[in-house]
Structures are given as structure tokens and as C-alpha cells.
């Protein structure tokens, strides 16, 4: 069992125009930097990208937006991103905004084989328009459907050749749920370790969810809001 590929290039083999891609990360934290860079280089286009955020102008998914490789974004918050705004307002970019918890659950359910579920989030708002409403215990809920993707691309801290992954800090975020929901799941990791180095008791993503894994290079790990307190 060896899921190791040499590089982002090999990991992305089979990636085609118009595919649906999930990308882990929250803001710029825990994003698959190597694969995003390679996707820019490959020039695939008309992508549907499922990602909580859309990066900033010059980093993260913003890089794909600048090259107009994304046709549709499925996100919960698209933050400060001038190019995103321009494309959205001009109609070049289709945008589907989803409550963050529903987005996370829809990815998890997609990976877990649950095609639909009920959640109270978004009832009575435009998110609920056209969706089935059902009342449970006196409270109205929306029927939400699962999401899956042709490729799910996640970033982890450490991984082994079985595809077992551990994440660091809040860089975990959407990565585990999306790892479950890819037809092909690619994990880029900061460090490849030997099987057995990761304690089986403390693995965040079991290898069964991962098809390809590689050790990334040159992580920038940019900080969006560097907030500090004075040493008193």
C-alpha cells in the first residue's frame, strides 16, 4: 500500500476542465498551497471550487481567480478579494453562498454516504428558498443535500504512505470533512513519515479516505490578521 506520489503535478493527474474540486482551509490557514500553485500552472479552467473562502487577491484561491480558472465558487464567506468582487459583479463568476456549518456538514455527509439531512440553518432566509422544509420538535428545518467532488485537495501536517493524516492547530478546519468527500482525495503534507510513526490512536483522517499523498515544499503559510498583545 503506497499512495505516495512525487509531486503536486503527479497528484493532480486526471484533473480536467469543468471538474468540481474541494479545497480545504479556512482563510489562508491550512490551504493546499502546492496544489493551488500547480493548478494555476496547469491552467485548468471552468472549475467549480468548493472552499469555505476564496483566498485573497494574491494568495490561495485568489491565484486561480486571477487567471479566471474558476467558473463557480461554493463558499460561506468570500472575504476581502477585489478580483472576486469584480468577477462576481460582472457575472463572470457564479457564487453559491452556503452557511458555514451546512457547508461542513454537506461535505461530511458526502463522504459518509448520507445523501441528505435536515438542519435549522438558513430556514426563513434566502438560503431556504426552493428547499424542502420539515418541522421536527416544533422547529422548522431545511433539507440539505450532500456534496462530493471529483478531487478533494487537503493540506495536513504529517502523513504516511497509507494516507493517514494529522493536522496542526486550526489548520484542520474543513480538511477532514473534505478528505472524506473526494472521488480522488489528494493530501499534501508538510512531512511524510513512516507507517507506525503516527500513533493509530490519534489519527485525524484515516488513510482509507486518501488516494494520493505527497510532501509539499516551500510553505508560505501566510497570516491574514497578525494580531498580538504587548508583553506586559
Amino acid at each position, binding site marked *: 500500500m503506497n499512495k505516495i506520489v512525487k509531486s503536486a503535478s503527479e497528484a493532480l493527474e486526471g484533473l480536467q476542465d469543468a471538474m468540481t474540486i474541494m479545497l480545504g482551509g*479556512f*482563510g*489562508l*490557514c*491550512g490551504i493546499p498551497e502546492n496544489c493551488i500553485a500547480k493548478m494555476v500552472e496547469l491552467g485548468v479552467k471552468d472549475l467549480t471550487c468548493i472552499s*469555505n473562502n476564496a483566498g485573497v487577491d494574491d494568495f490561495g484561491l485568489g491565484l486561480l481567480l486571477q487567471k479566471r480558472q474558476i467558473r463557480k465558487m461554493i*463558499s*460561506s*464567506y*468570500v*472575504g476581502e478579494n477585489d478580483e472576486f*468582487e469584480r468577477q*462576481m*459583479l460582472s457575472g463572470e463568476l457564479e*457564487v453559491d*453562498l452556503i*452557511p*458555514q*456549518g*451546512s*457547508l*461542513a*456538514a454537506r*461535505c*461530511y455527509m458526502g463522504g459518509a454516504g448520507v445523501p441528505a439531512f435536515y*438542519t*435549522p*440553518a*438558513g*430556514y*426563513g*432566509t*434566502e*438560503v431556504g428558498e426552493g428547499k424542502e422544509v420539515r418541522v421536527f420538535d416544533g422547529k422548522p428545518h431545511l433539507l440539505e443535500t450532500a456534496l462530493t467532488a471529483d478531487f478533494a485537495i487537503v493540506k495536513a*501536517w504529517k502523513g504516511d504512505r497509507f494516507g493517514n493524516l494529522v*493536522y*496542526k*492547530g*486550526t*489548520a*484542520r*478546519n*474543513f*480538511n*477532514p*470533512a473534505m478528505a472524506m468527500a473526494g472521488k480522488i482525495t489528494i493530501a499534501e503534507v508538510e512531512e511524510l513519515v513512516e507507517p507506525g510513526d503516527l500513533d493509530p490512536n490519534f489519527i*485525524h483522517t484515516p488513510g482509507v479516505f486518501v488516494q494520493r499523498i505527497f510532501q509539499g515544499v516551500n510553505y508560505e*503559510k*501566510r*497570516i*491574514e*490578521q*497578525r*494580531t*498580538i*498583545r*504587548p*508583553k506586559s
Partner: protein
Amino acid sequence: MLDKNGIAQRIAQELRDGWYVNLGIGIPTLVANYIQDDINVVFQSENGILGMGPFPYEGEEDADLINAGKQTITALPGASIFDSATSFAMIRGQHIQLTVLGAMEVSDTGDIANWKIPGRMVKGMGGAMDLVASADNIVVAMMHTNKKGASKLLRECSLPLTGVKCVKRIVTNLAVLDISPEGFQLIERAPGVGVEDIKNATEGRLIIEGDIPEMKF
């Protein structure tokens, strides 16, 4: 009349020992600065941490440890980190005792609008719709009126909604109000603010019963 810090300070009085609390961006974030010494609360950030601590000292920022506002943070002893699906399982499953968030408008039936202004760039609802649909206890921190002086406490929201019939309490620069079946129930006045001031600044139905005490700090 209160400033933003005053609103945060008044909301801090709502916290109870042992509560798990989610603070939204803006005024709600300031609430953490006014926790009373004799209570312990745990702050959740919906990107995946319980036990969020203060900002790091300079040089100790960790790109892999941020809050939902994308700010660098620290983790306190006893903290736990989890993924987004688990985070919203906590929220949706009502394991978080209190959510404090800002609003652009609130209706007197407890509807809230805080994510979208038609004609302006939409950034998205983030976790707000999940939070307001789920939490048992939602306190809104907001200014009573907008920059033009128009009331933000309305009979009905004019902006696209974030959630319906979900707000429990509102703390503004002028007052504390609860959502009652009959409308905004006035609970407290801000220091130096009269009932008439609040009446004038409130478009929705306002219920005033007996003497309305001034907030205590």
C-alpha cells in the same frame, strides 16, 4: 449612552460560570475583555477551537492557530481543537450556551439581518446562519440607530434575513431589550438615557412596563 466598549461590558454581565460562548466579529469580540473575575467561561471559535486565549506575544504568532476572524490567537490549558464539521455539530446541537453577534437590523419578533445589503458586495454569511438557527441564547450587540439616525430595531427587517425568531436579547448603546411576544421589552436604560430617547430610537413595537432601571456596571 454607551460606546462599543460599554455595550461589550454590559453583555459580559450576561455570562454565567461554566458557559461555552461564541463571540462574533466586531463589538462581540470586545466582550472577552470584560469577563468578571469570579466566573470561568470557555470561548469557542467556529473554525475549530474551544478554549481560545488572548492574542500571542509578538514573535509567537502561529499561522496554524487562528480564530474565525482569521486573527492569530493562543490556546489556553484545557483547550481542544477540532474540525469544522465537529465545530458546527457543537453549535447546531446546542452545546454552546451563548452566542453574541452583531446585526444590521433586528425585528421585534426576533428576526435578525446581518449578512447582506442588496446592491452591495456580498461577502457571505459565514457561520452566522448556523449560529442564530441553533443557539438557545442569542444576544445581539449593536448600535440602536444607523449612521443616519434611523432605527435598527424594526417592526420587520428590510434587509435579507440571517435567521427568524431567534434573537433573545439586544444590547445597544441606549438599552437592553428582550424579545417578548408583544415586541421589544425594555429591560434597562443606558446611563443617562431616558425612556423617551429609547422610544424615539425604536421603530418596532416597544413594551415599557413599570420603572426601567439604569444599567449597573
